[in-house]
């Protein structure tokens, strides 16, 4: 897991969800722990796309449930 990706994912998450940085740990679920509803998740995924210059297809959004999932997914996507 890339430390740089984690740092950026945490930054985007803090900004998009208005949560405290210390809450955004790898195991935190966006919906269960960080208060995101279904619209917030779509917005968050779009922010990840913008931040990392990648496309996240709708049918793959389900893989991203936690902060750690997002980092793993983005690293995989970037190295592909």
């Amino acid at each position: 897991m890339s430390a740089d990706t984690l740092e950026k994912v945490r930054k985007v998450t803090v900004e998009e969800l208005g949560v405290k940085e210390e809450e955004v740990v790898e195991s935190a679920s966006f919906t269960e722990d960080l208060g995101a509803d279904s619209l917030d998740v779509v917005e968050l995924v779009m922010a990840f796309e913008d931040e990392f210059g990648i496309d996240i297809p709708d049918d793959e959004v389900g893989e991203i449930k936690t902060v750690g999932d997002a980092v793993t997914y983005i690293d995989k996507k970037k190295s592909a």
Partner: protein
Amino acid sequence: MSDRPVPSGRVVITGVGAVTPLGTGVAKFWPRLLAGESAVERITLLDPSEYTTQIAAEVKDFVAEDWLDKKEARRIDRFIAFAVAAAAMAMQDSEIKVDDDLRNEFGVMIGSGIGGLTYLGEQHRRQIEGGPSKVSPFLVPYMIPDMASGYVSILNGLKGPNTCVVTACSTGANAIGDAYHIIKRGDAICMLAGGTEAPINELGLGGFCAARAMTTRNDDPAHASRPFDKDRDGFVIGEGSAVFVLEDYDHAIARGAKIYGEVIGYGMTGDAYHITQPDPNADGAYRAVKMALRTAGKSPEDIGYVNAHGTSTYYNDKGETMAIKRAFGDHAYNVPVSSTKSMIGHTLGAAGAIEALICLLAMRDSKLPPTINYETPDPECDLDYIPNVARDKEVNISMSNSYGFGGHNVSLILKKV
């Protein structure tokens, strides 16, 4: 349902909140309005240099984070944020306690003439640049004009009638009038009602510039909004919100509420003339005044103050003057009429609500706000416009006029209780 109280048929205002170009909160706004301050300056919300009109009355002291959680405050359209703030102030001012019984009898009717145009413009740009997958899921909820009501109902847990009215620049007045009817006929005990608008963005400014409705006195912002003055050349766009707690009279009395005033008359008509220009005969505006007087059971002599629509356009100010003269007869020359748009610009869908608030405060304090920048009389506008300086006068009943693109004419009559 049998234990629902019988409606008194009277509707009073027991709480007020406002976000205006002269300040957020009535305590900030009202003294500055009475002092005749202008809120009009060069636009800062966007770079106006390419627009024919480069000035506006912006709300400068508003901080969305003071009223919304951080996540929402960052992204929500300004027209919703203004309404959330004005509604919160009105609820606090009313000191009303909303239990689970009252919750279902407490509705919301906060209109907007335009809705979330800033957010719409940003998302349109994203779609053009990045394709449909770049459009935010919040585009639709933040753009639709009913979301001020929707959002306020959610934040305050109000589950009565939830709706909004969209009648351009008469929206705020229609919202108060329609909410008054809802309570009067017994479909709710309380309503949060008013208007909100945040039109100072690229599309809003571009659209109104193209419509040639705004002043181009860019080099002299503070004197640009000059209703009824001979040298007026168009309106100054503004932004803001005002929201009232409207309440059944008996309910308000039973809980010992502070009462600002009572809504006693509501007239609304259509011009059926032109999409943006008012009927030059001002027949619709005249009939709205007549309907308001009839529904209030009052005669022109009972009206002690008129807060005019007074946009500072050639046609509005001339036509509105004609309408008042025709409806009031000789009394037209005895009643003070002022346009507070001279100070806070034209807040479009919020204007009717902000100006109804001004009527309430004027009656409470026996102080009538002026029409500033009144320098050169126009023979076609020959009423007492309270030129330039506020006036002390005890007033028991006042009227507020509002007119909107589409030919909407609204007159509200408010009474001190």
